């Protein structure tokens, strides 16, 4: 199996605080990789470094074996879709305009009516009715905003989709719905998915591969079937949610 994204010796610090301390990671093509770890372990920094929203201090990021810095920025970004933690919908745009935002940019810009049709189709795909299309983000609940964010992430059918804590702030039922949607969509599109989460129920639904970050390193990586028998004390503590264990509760 080929790797879609390869990280080699990735380092990132903010001031004296080391966030990523030599990360080496291969993200397989067409699979769903979930990155777990406590708050402040660098999960979001890792995703943002791959996307170029944060510049790593050192290391290499390869996309399909090619150094990211050698790729055209627009072509590179065209491969990615991202669902942000708070959905990050644009307040001044209607729901359909949010979903169709990428479709209305660049060389392959679609007409307004075509973009709207696709946006409504994607909204339906995430379980939202077409009447939602003309509302504004502030008129939707948190769960609905997450679905719209998901629709926006998949609107251009990207090869890679990033999900940043997709179930944070949602009730258990809505979390389950979002997890199922993510799994279905990833399988349906054949996309490479990378999700960061604290939510172990999400991990079990979404993941093919699990990676645990701790203290700027990869603490454990393996198949989702193996997480309960990993033999790693850090991972066991994280799964159980114990206050006592090798992961300090006061950070």
């Amino acid at each position, binding site marked *: 199996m080929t790797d879609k994204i390869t990280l080699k010796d990735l380092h990132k610090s903010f001031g004296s605080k080391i966030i990523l301390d030599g990360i080496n990671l291969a993200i397989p093509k067409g699979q769903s990789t979930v990155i777990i770890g406590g708050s402040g372990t660098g999960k979001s920094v890792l995703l*943002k470094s791959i*996307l*170029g*929203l944060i510049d790593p201090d050192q290391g290499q990021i390869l996309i399909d074996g090619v150094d990211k810095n050698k790729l055209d920025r*627009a072509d590179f*970004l*065209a491969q*990615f*879709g*991202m669902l*942000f*933690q*708070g959905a*990050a*919908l*644009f*307040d*001044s745009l209607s729901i359909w305009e949010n979903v169709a*935002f*990428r479709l209305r*940019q*660049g060389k392959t810009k679609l007409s307004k009516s075509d973009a709207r049709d696709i946006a409504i189709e994607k909204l339906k795909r995430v379980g939202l009715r077409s009447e939602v299309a003309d509302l504004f983000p502030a008129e939707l609940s948190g769960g609905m905003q997450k679905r719209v964010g998901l629709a*926006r992430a998949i609107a251009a059918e990207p090869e890679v989709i990033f999900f940043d804590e997709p179930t944070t702030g949602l009730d258990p039922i809505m979390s389950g719905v979002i997890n199922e949607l993510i799994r279905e969509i990833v399988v349906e599109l054949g996309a490479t998915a990378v999700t960061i989460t604290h939510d172990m129920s999400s991990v079990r639904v979404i993941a093919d591969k699990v990676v645990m970050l701790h203290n700027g390193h990869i603490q454990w990586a393996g198949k989702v079937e193996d997480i309960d028998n990993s033999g790693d004390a850090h991972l066991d503590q994280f799964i159980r949610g114990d206050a006592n264990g090798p992961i300090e509760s006061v950070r």
Partner: protein
Amino acid sequence: MVIFTNFLTNIGEVTLGFFAMIGRIAIFAGLAIKHIVTPPFYGREFSRSLWHIGFLSLPVVGLTAIFTGGALVLQIFLGSSDLNAQSVTPFIAALAIVRELGPVLGGLMVAGRVSSSVAAEIATMRVTEQIDALLTLSTNPMKYLVAPRVLAATLVMPLLVLINDILGILGGYLVGTSRLGFSGHAYIKATVDNLEFWDVGSGLIKAAVFGFILALMGCYHGYNSGRGAQGVGRATTNAVVSASVLILAANYILTELFFSS
């Protein structure tokens, strides 16, 4: 000795920080201009900004102008009475309005309204990751957020100040004719006959510069805001304060340039 060294270190840090900030603002301004003149252009964002910065600022600018014009005429009339030169009141008031008070007060009032709201909007977008989302959607935030706002403010401010000038003179006219005994015809004649095109034109050029400054400061502080509600609040305050100070400083420099000879 240590105290003296620390004192010098602190002065050095503050000085370096100040010049570094000027450098960052200059680079930001350069990028804003570059994105104003290079495609793609976001017409909808531009027209939204025109509406927000221009049309919605009309009430605050208009009311300020009317009351300032009225008060100014009263003061000039009282001052000129001592010299028995009340007849110059309409002209002096108009000159002060079109050259100085119109652009400066208009600029400060719009800075209070627009710099703050632009800073708060963009800072909130920063905090809620909307700016990151723009980047991942292959859209340059400088082009999408900053360029339309700066261009709109630069173009619409002269228009606002022109309206400000007219309403300021109207405020003076109302006070002059109703309270100070000027005849309507004499007041208008004294104003129009003595004003030159450059008096008004210089004010409009100032207005364009102030528009650029107030939008740029709103965008700069919003774009570089810190995290959380405190970050948004600080960005808003810094935007208004820096825009106001820069408008006053620019006004002095432009006045020197236009009129010192």
